[in-house]
């Protein structure tokens, strides 16, 4: 089965979340780490974060539905820069949640979570950007998202789309231009 056939098959399923584990294996051949990189509370926070960064809308699923937390947990186990960026994000979110004296981030109502993230984006731009970009990464490396978006990944065994050959007639005006490069004695 080539990638296109695989995507077609998987794309027939509306159960994004159920399909996600199989898809992760497509782009991520690394073995699953023996020890989880995130504590259960962190995983819950990450799922809530992913759900707000890319919510479901316009016929597209949310990052949480697409398994962003699981993707990032695996990435964090392999790559310290990812783990560090997530730790920073968790620390900031926890600090801000505590300051509100309210429930955990994941249990806040959606408008409150968005407000908290907007404040983080304003005050700690680099830290927020790193977390946001990781959620984008988890989402936009997922072939199910690609299919919804209309991106056709051409794998090593497939050819790209046919493109029309260059039409020399397009150059009629340019060909008639005077020489543009300077002569050098």
């Amino acid at each position: 089965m080539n990638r296109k056939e695989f995507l077609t098959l998987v794309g027939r399923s509306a159960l994004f979340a159920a399909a996600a584990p199989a898809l992760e294996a497509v782009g991520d051949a690394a073995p699953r780490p023996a020890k989880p990189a995130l504590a259960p509370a962190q995983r819950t926070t990450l799922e809530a974060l992913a759900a707000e960064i890319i919510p479901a809308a316009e016929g597209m699923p949310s990052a949480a539905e697409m398994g962003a937390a699981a993707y990032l947990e695996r990435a964090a186990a392999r790559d310290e820069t990812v783990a560090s960026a997530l730790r920073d994000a968790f620390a900031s979110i926890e600090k801000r949640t505590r300051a509100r004296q309210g429930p955990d981030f994941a249990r806040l109502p959606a408008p409150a979570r968005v407000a908290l993230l907007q404040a983080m984006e304003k005050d700690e731009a680099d830290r927020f950007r790193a977390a946001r970009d990781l959620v984008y990464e988890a989402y936009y490396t997922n072939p199910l998202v690609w299919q919804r978006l209309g991106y056709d990944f051409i794998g090593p065994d497939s050819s790209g789309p046919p493109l029309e050959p260059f039409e020399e007639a397009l150059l009629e005006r340019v060909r008639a231009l005077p020489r543009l490069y300077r002569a050098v004695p």
Partner: protein
Amino acid sequence: MSPALERVDVVVVGSGAAGAAVAWSLADRGAKVVCLEQGDWVRPESMPSSRTDFEVSQRRGPDTLFPSLRKRPEDYPIVTEGGLRPDQVLMFNGVGGTTVHWEGHFPRMHPSDFRVRSRDGVADDWPIRYEDLERYYDLNDRHIGVSGLAGDPANPPRAPRPTPPLPLGARGRAVARGFEKLGWHWWPSDNAILSRDYDGRKGCDFRGRCNFGCARRAKASTDVTYWPKAIRGGVLLRTWARAREITVDERGRARGVLYHDRSGRTIEQLARVVVVCANGIGTPRLLLHSRSRLFPDGLANSSGQVGRNYMAHPSRYVEGVFPERIDGHVGVTSNPLFSHQFYETDTSRGFVRGYSLVVYGPMGPLSQAWGDVEPVPWGEAHHREMRRRWGHTVGIAVMAEDLPEETNRVTLDAEAKDSSGIPAARVRYAFSENSLRMLEHGARAARQALEAAGAAQVRDTGAPNVFAHLMGTARMGGDPRRSVVDAWNRAHDVPNLFVVDGSSFTTAAAVNPTSTIGALALRAADGIWEGRRDWI
């Protein structure tokens, strides 16, 4: 005392655009050649373009283009300063060098690029002319299988291209429409990407993602062009061989190259001629590290110019979002067409020299979301904005000529070292006022072109960046007091030492350097061969 290997005619350090061409050319005529490459062979199929996470390699992991982030065992640390960031220095260490990761744009310099001082009163003239390189450009083009079209009025006439131009695609047609409307120059690019089967390699089938590896081998990295021929011709390509020092004899001639093999042993490869092709950072690093009683300031450095005049091609990026679908990610990664409307000097613009306009697009959905200019917003509006941009975005990059400045330079770092204990390279780079004025002009021009093409929205990064081309740090010149190598890439100070890569550029021009690097390498090889009676 390190063990010494039997003396060969020529030892080449580095297997990229220059090293491969030099090695092939000399072996083809019967020279006994050894090439030392600090990395390994890389199978194109193993590169990120075959994986769904290919875009992540733009930022991290073992396949990123930036050695300071990649940190493979074969990489060496690069410390940056002067505003330069680690992700603004790009190279690859492996067979094929940085051509493994390049996009394949293959323009030539203009004749005036070799006469910068005499035509524009800045920098220095090269000691050679365009005409001196012309037949080597042609020869290199044939090895590469360049796709393109002769007849461009912005460039001197040239031989028919070995393969026809690549398709413009919808994004190229859109930008061409803008140039047409403005009455500006544009032309389909010369690319080191086959548009049809050629020389045993397959033509491009428009998978995109070119700089993440071309499993089809349509992109002309030298591991798939020169190296198979060079090896058939007898070149011994030694991988995992990290050059530590160029050794010299008591007369001050190069004796060979001291290198570390994979097991960490230190070995000296003796040779009659040494050719350094380690790129605009690796070459000055090696020369500066080759200190001796006769050369206390580094080899070939009596002028003090080794490492100075680092040039990198300043850039700005301007992006347009079109109402219609233009699929900016389809086709070759970069540059189906370019404009040299503002290439030659016109001082009424407020700067000297000029720039190219080159066409890009997002590589994939993740690049689009991260945003080359501005990220897609998070939250409620995310999908709406992503749908508006995805498939509708094309960018124009401004590639400006930066002038050589002694303060932009490569030195040895006092603390950081690679895994063999060799000092890291320290690179300092800052933009000149001339470069910034040129980029500002270029960004306005790019905006104008995209608007004329029909873009509904145009955004500009507003900040200068660099193309990370590595040039100028062992410059060519006629005056030994102000340059490192002569018109044949021979070191002024060491008669059997040659420096053949971007470091030998006297000035940078405003085009990608690899075509000129290859042509210089073939020409230098001719010079080395012609001078073989002096090899001793």
